[in-house]
């Protein structure tokens, strides 16, 4: 499996650290209720198919990446800088 880092180009999976579901970009407000935090920290859709994940280019440029990947086939659909994704949402 290879990921195409927007900064470094196509690189081997060994260079990347998998953080998990891209739900990490949707941190609840500090005063959100317990259910919101449970949903953020623990509960997962866990789909067999395309989903968005956070990966860290740990042994490369150090960027955090949002990766659209199919968990049934390991096919990678897109890779974007997490900072761009976050800024585009405002």
């Amino acid at each position, binding site marked *: *499996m290879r990921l195409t880092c927007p900064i470094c180009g196509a690189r*081997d*999976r*060994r260079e990347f650290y*998998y*953080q*998990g*579901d891209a739900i990490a970009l949707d941190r609840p407000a500090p005063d959100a209720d*317990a*259910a919101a935090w*449970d*949903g953020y*920290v*623990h*509960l*997962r*859709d*866990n*789909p*067999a198919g395309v*989903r968005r*994940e956070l990966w860290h280019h740990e042994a490369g440029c150090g960027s955090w990446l949002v990766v659209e990947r199919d*968990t*049934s*086939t*390991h096919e990678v659909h897109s890779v974007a800088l997490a900072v761009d994704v976050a800024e585009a949402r405002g």
Partner: protein
Amino acid sequence: MKFSGLRVLKEGLTGNKGWTPHWRDPEPKAEYDAIIIGGGGHGLSTAYYLAKNHGMTNIAVLEKGYIGSGNIGRNTTIVRANYFLPGNSEFYSHSLKLWEGLEEDLNYNVMHSGRGMINLFHSDGQRDAFARRGNAMINQGDDAILLDREGVRKHLPYLDFENTRFPIYGGLLHPRGGTARHDAVAWGYARGADRRGVDLLQNCEVMGSDIENGVVRGVQTTRGAIRAKKVGIVVAGRSGQVAAMAGMRLPIESHVLQAFVTEGLKPCIDHVVTYGMGHFYISQSDKGGLVFGGDLDFYASYASRGNLPTAEHVMEAGMTLMPMIGKAKLLRSWGGIMDMTPDGSPIIDKTDTEGLFIDCGWCYGGFKAVPASGYAFAHLMATGQHHETASAFRLDRFRTGRGILDEEGTGSQHNLH
């Protein structure tokens, strides 16, 4: 049909013409008292103990493929009771006792082999941790012996004791640990359940659940609608999809775990050996193949196959520990779908839907739990009460923060186990 030595002899002398199928292939009924979704090890043992311990025989097991086609037929077959935390200890201790009586109970040869397991350690700190774990095992009533380096050498003379990075200081021997024939466990429980009247419905995939006003009424399947007052979800790596049909999100992410088997060799590895620092463990099957594996690939996957980095890491770890296996040829590898919970421990609990129960989150350690998981889940489904050996496996422990079962001590968020 009862198996016995006499029967084997008689069939051998008469052309093996008297053997009959181990279970029926029934048509689904319109309604059952209880349905088990998932015909893997845990689902089959649940059905067996529902029938045997609780007299519930009007039940069905729904399996989307064939019996034994999932993780129960593809794992590294290790059976052990070397857990440390209260909540886990009593459960796995119960499971090992069930394993030890399983063949007689099922009248089926599951080839259970208490050949002994040795967890290696490589530092003073690790020795202390294993001494403490061994004491916890003994307090639970199981067996543990702390071996020094020479003690390990007597059992495993072929290891590289002078490994520069992780020199072997000793090991924790769990004499009753061992292996079992994984397929036979599925077949034995399937046969045992069938003989007590349980319908095993194969090629029967659940497509939706019927829930009215918070009460489960049954399920929609590829073989039609089936009504039931009680439904148990026991689908391992696919828990997320089946739970979603009931409107639930689970504290589970499914990951891939690889394992490997070499060509058959003469007997050379008599124990189960684990090398935690290298993320490597190994045993030898009765057929002669070296069966070994390592860590998760560490990304979400349903592909049933892994990638090269983890495969390489496992081979490298094996070579540093026991260089003698270097010339063995790898026969096959595979990847199983692991239902990983945040704290690495399982869930056996009711859900918010009345009559709907769930048994999941076995991470990469479900095989040894097959007997006790079915025993406890059957108890919960039949009586509505948690079995005393499995009362800690609560679904709500993540939400409340009470009773987190972090056996590894690495944390209780995803991707840490």
